[in-house]
């Protein structure tokens, strides 16, 4: 792969990942945060493919973006959906 394309893709992915991570921390709705977190993992799995680690990418894609999100959602359903002072949206 061309070096320039590699740098451009990596930069784009890291910008997206950090933006999603900041949104995870800032959002008051926990279910929204869980879904954004699975987005972070999905992009991380793409970065693993860029780093020539297809095994790790497969594990990250299925664990990070499917199972972690679903376990978080089950836990949120047993507790509060909103952070304190966040229900007015």
């Amino acid at each position, binding site marked *: 792969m061309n*070096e320039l394309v*590699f*740098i451009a893709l*990596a*930069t784009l992915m*890291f*910008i997206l*990942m*950090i933006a999603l*991570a*900041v949104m*995870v*921390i800032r959002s008051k709705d*926990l279910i929204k*945060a*869980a879904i954004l*977190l699975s987005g*972070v*993992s999905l992009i*991380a799995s793409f*970065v*693993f493919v860029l*780093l*020539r*680690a*297809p*095994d*790790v990418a497969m*594990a*990250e894609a299925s*664990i*990070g973006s499917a*199972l*972690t999100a679903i*376990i*978080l959602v089950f*836990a*949120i359903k*047993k*507790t*509060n959906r909103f*952070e*304190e002072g966040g229900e007015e949206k």
Partner: protein
Amino acid sequence: MNGLALVFYGGILLLIAVGIWGILSRRNLIKVIMAITIIATGVNLLLVSVGYISGRAAPIVGGDTGIDASSTTGSVVDPIPQALVLTAIVIGLATTALALVAAVGYYRKTGSLELKSWSYGLTNEKEVKK
């Protein structure tokens, strides 16, 4: 230090910094667990990127990949960090689940997920119980 190192190490460390900011500034337990998951993702990326070597293929030989099984030295990236991270990801899910169950237990005990002070669940238990 070249441009690629700047992008990868800088991006990964900023991701870890976002996670640390989340742990330090949020009081919701589930949000703290999410921040820990972000840090775990960043650390996994850091480990794999240390093992990356420019211009080499994934560590799979033979078959469609076109890499001869007898000359793997010098043509594929380092497989050890990848093996390490593979197990780290799987364990990360189990520990996240354990932490979440602990958070649910805290909610059942105090009626809230917010961490007012570190001794909240222990000292004020009788007054808060609904």
